[in-house]
């Protein structure tokens, strides 16, 4: 068996591949239902909605400017790993509708399912040192420069994304979107524990 405290490269690859697949399936469900969510994915959903451009392309484009920031802060290795992850994710979201065309899905079931899929995807990526890139690195930079807490900036940006969504989405869609985002946040808050999952 491998070192309990360090993942081997192969273990990291399977963890991140799992995360990318679950995130892609979650995004496929999210866009199929016309829901929004928080952070980078939510921003990309709104921009795709407003411009009419395909969501996977918008998502990939949105993550690009933050790659430079990630490179400066966390180094070339982290930036290239993030680029590979977001590229794979965007590609998978692009081709998934061709392989898995969704039929009728009840929104009350879809919302928590999206939350669980995003939650497990983020958990696997974090535990295996991966990153889906985007806004979060900006909030860390902001905290370092101005002292404004990254967690607050993240929450505030989600409030703004949902406020913008409220202008263009029907009320029930907004409520289901919020339910999905709440399940996602709660799942991560309970299960992301470096004191329980000790390997890095």
């Amino acid at each position, binding site marked *: *068996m491998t070192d*309990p405290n360090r993942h081997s490269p192969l*273990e990291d690859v*399977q*963890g991140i591949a*799992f995360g990318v*697949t*679950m995130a892609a*399936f979650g995004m496929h469900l999210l866009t199929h239902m016309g829901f929004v969510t928080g952070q980078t994915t939510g921003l990309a959903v709104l921009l795709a909605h407003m411009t009419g451009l395909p969501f996977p392309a918008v998502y990939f484009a949105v993550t690009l400017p933050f790659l430079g920031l990630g490179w400066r802060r966390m180094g070339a290795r982290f930036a290239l790993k993030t680029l590979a992850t977001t590229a794979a994710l965007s590609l998978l979201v692009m081709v*998934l509708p061709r*392989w*898995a*065309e*969704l*039929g*009728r*899905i*009840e929104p009350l*079931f*879809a919302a*928590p*399912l999206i939350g*669980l899929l995003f939650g*497990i995807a983020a958990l*696997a990526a974090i535990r295996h040192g991966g990153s889906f890139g985007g806004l979060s690195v900006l909030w860390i930079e902001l905290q370092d420069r101005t002292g404004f807490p990254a967690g607050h900036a993240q929450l505030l940006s989600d409030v703004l994304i949902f406020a913008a969504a409220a202008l263009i989405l029907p009320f029930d869609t907004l409520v289901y979107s919020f339910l999905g985002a709440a399940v996602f946040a709660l*799942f991560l808050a*309970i*299960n992301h*524990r470096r*004191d*329980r*999952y*000790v*390997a890095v």
Partner: protein
Amino acid sequence: MTDPERHTLIEDAQGIVYGATMAAFGIVILTHLGLVTGQTAGLAVLISYATGWSFGPVFFVINLPFYLLGALRMGWQFTAKTFTAVGLLSGLSLWLPSQVSFATLNPIVGVVLFGFLSGSALLALFRHGASLGGIGIVALMLQDRLGWRAGWVQLGFDAILFTLAFAVIEARLVLISFLGALVVNLVIAINHRRDRYVAT
């Protein structure tokens, strides 16, 4: 924050709900494609195909004899959690087809999705002191008592099940099913590590 070494009741409950939901969604995908799988769930799927009975009730009944073994060797808490997970999965698998449907689903993509969903479902259940009953209890017991990897024991049981499957479904579908069972068992063999996820 809660004790790093011990899960609270709420933490275990959300882990078991996650596991049962993802496993049930996996079964919806698997049976939509007419595929089989390993373990007790695989036996129930095979019986369900052969008799026309629904998966949920068959799976629930097959598991009944194993609770005695579970209570004797793994304790009442593990048995109660497993009973809850099996009950939830049985109920959800009856309800889910009314909630979610696929217009088209590529069998290879579907079976990999099934593998990731059930693999992470079982991982969550194991880490929260539960299982999906049946052969899982036997495999887990052997890992804890004799140090045999649970993944390998399950692979042996699966080999027998897949031989029987050739009599019930097309050979092509059995081969595709094999890929799914491989993914499930790989996810568990690589990631079920008590030295990495230390909470019980």
